[in-house]
């Protein structure tokens, strides 16, 4: 084995890691700079830096398309993602508490069923769900995007919270119940506050996944003024002439900002959450 001095090996390690960082982050840096390049430079010049900074893309892009401004898409996305977070945390923590802490008939079978739905491709329930919402006159509203979350159909989060609640010492809630606390109060005042890390992880991932979700939103939303950010961006795909590139990349960059902010704020928690629960980004 070659014996390099410790410092040299450490330096080589850092260089290698930095090279990978550069490759991995290149597309994002490229996007950031492309959003402020003059349109004719975006594809024709290889250099990352623009010859001059132009913010036309942002002003033009923000005007949106088909008379609907991009601000509207952002508001819609925030509304859908915000309500999804609230709905998911509420319903998933309720179900998780029952699975993790209470004994009831069919618990094993129901739990096994919940785990199975983790692997169920979304497409199998998609069409009947669409038919239900269509019959109820709810297509082209946000209800089909939020109601499933209010009914805890995202088994992943139930599972995540169950796993976390199992780690909380049982004596705590057993003592509370013996002391005369109702199950409901025990849930609200003992178990839920202690589950905060799992609830925060659930919130972050629900937000990011909903923010990124394209398929469901495309299926259910028709009117441009109901569009969310991914659908707004898609308008640029349909009209992808080079003249639109500036606006497209400016809005793409903006679309990633909320995720990047979330990521920077919760980076530690997110990455830990992934490694302990097996969540996927």
């Amino acid at each position: 084995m070659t014996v390099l001095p410790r410092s040299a090996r450490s330096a080589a390690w850092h260089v290698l890691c930095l090279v990978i960082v550069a490759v991995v982050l290149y597309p994002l840096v490229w996007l950031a700079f492309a959003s402020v390049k003059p349109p004719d430079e975006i594809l024709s010049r290889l250099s990352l830096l623009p010859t001059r900074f132009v913010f036309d893309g942002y002003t033009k892009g923000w005007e949106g398309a088909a008379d609907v401004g991009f601000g509207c898409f952002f508001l819609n996305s925030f509304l859908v993602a915000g309500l999804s977070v609230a709905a998911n945390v509420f319903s998933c923590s309720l179900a998780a508490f029952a699975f993790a802490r209470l004994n009831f008939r069919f618990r094993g079978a129901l739990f096994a069923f919940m785990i199975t739905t983790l692997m169920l491709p979304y497409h199998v329930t998609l069409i009947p769900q669409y038919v239900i919402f269509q019959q109820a006159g709810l297509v082209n509203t946000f209800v089909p995007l939020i109601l499933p979350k209010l009914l805890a159909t995202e088994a992943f989060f139930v599972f995540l919270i169950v796993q976390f609640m199992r780690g909380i010492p049982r004596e705590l809630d057993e003592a509370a119940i013996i002391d005369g606390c109702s199950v409901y109060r025990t849930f609200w005042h003992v178990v839920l506050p202690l589950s905060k890390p799992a609830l925060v992880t659930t919130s972050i991932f629900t937000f990011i996944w909903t923010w990124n979700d394209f398929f469901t939103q495309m299926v259910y939303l028709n009117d441009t003024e109901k569009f969310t950010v991914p659908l707004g961006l898609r308008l640029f795909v349909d009209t992808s002439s080079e003249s639109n590139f500036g606006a497209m990349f400016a809005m793409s960059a903006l679309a990633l900002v909320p995720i990047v902010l979330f990521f920077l704020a919760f980076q530690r928690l997110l990455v830990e959450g992934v490694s302990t629960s097996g969540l996927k980004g």
Partner: protein
Amino acid sequence: MTTVRTPDPPVAWDTPVRARRRDRPPGRRRKSRPEAFAFLTPWLLGAVALTVGPMVVSLYLSFTDYDLFTSPKWVGFGNFAHMVTDDDRYLQSVKVTLIYVLVSVPLKLTVSLLVAMLLNTRRGGGGFYRAAFYAPSLLGASVAAALVWRALFMGGGPVNEVLASVGWHTPSWVDDPRFSLASIVLLGVWQFGAPMVIFLAGLKQIPAELHEAAAIDGAGAVRRFRHITLPMLSPVIFFNLVMEAIHAFQAFTPAFVIGGGRGGPADADLFYTLYLFEVGFQDFRMGYASAMAWVLLAVIAIVTAIVFKTAKLWVFYDDAGERR
């Protein structure tokens, strides 16, 4: 029997409940709590109205012609027969998806394992690198990232230019049937951060003494990797393999955006889910789309079952003797 300890990240999903029940001494059963069903109400409603009910309906629809506006017409196995005998685009979508799964999943797992091993040291800065590598896993699923990808791999885009500067002149990747799928595979591999973090957690569980002992016995790096790292990590590899395969089968956004919404050049990016979307929500052939969804479910179930069955041969648990 002691409590079954699951290796940390790949949690054996069903063990805790069962283990606890077996651990409990007979005669001291915990009181059943009817309140549980109050807590379960939203979930139960969802399970019945949005999961089980729709599954039954979708199974029925898969044997019908249904256009959403007139009532379903029973066609027996017609939809399934049509898929395999009469629908070239369907077969194309199967081919594209299989190539994607078979190429992108192993590639992504290899990259994520190698990078995880690189980061598995006590050197400073590991946290920063880990975070940087993880970022694409969160951003990569978005339309914005796919749009960037399209531009990077376009004719005259950075990838073309860099390759041309080293003498390899390629056509516009996203517009050439030979290269288009490759660009989507690379977009998938770019998101290696999520499995990497899970690998990293697994690597940290391997006791350093094992490697030290083997090194003293004269085992080189390759042998230690082959005989210590891989077996000790096999539960994590297993978990990542199953999850990544399930995800890859359902890929949609990159195919839609990079393929310009219609499956790319010569249907080279016609992913299964993309074709399903087209059939169901553009042509309103809901019965056919349901049949496609059930085939997807069957394939995912079969692949998962195969991975689980063969797991005995290559997945090792510390507590192998204690497991079922």
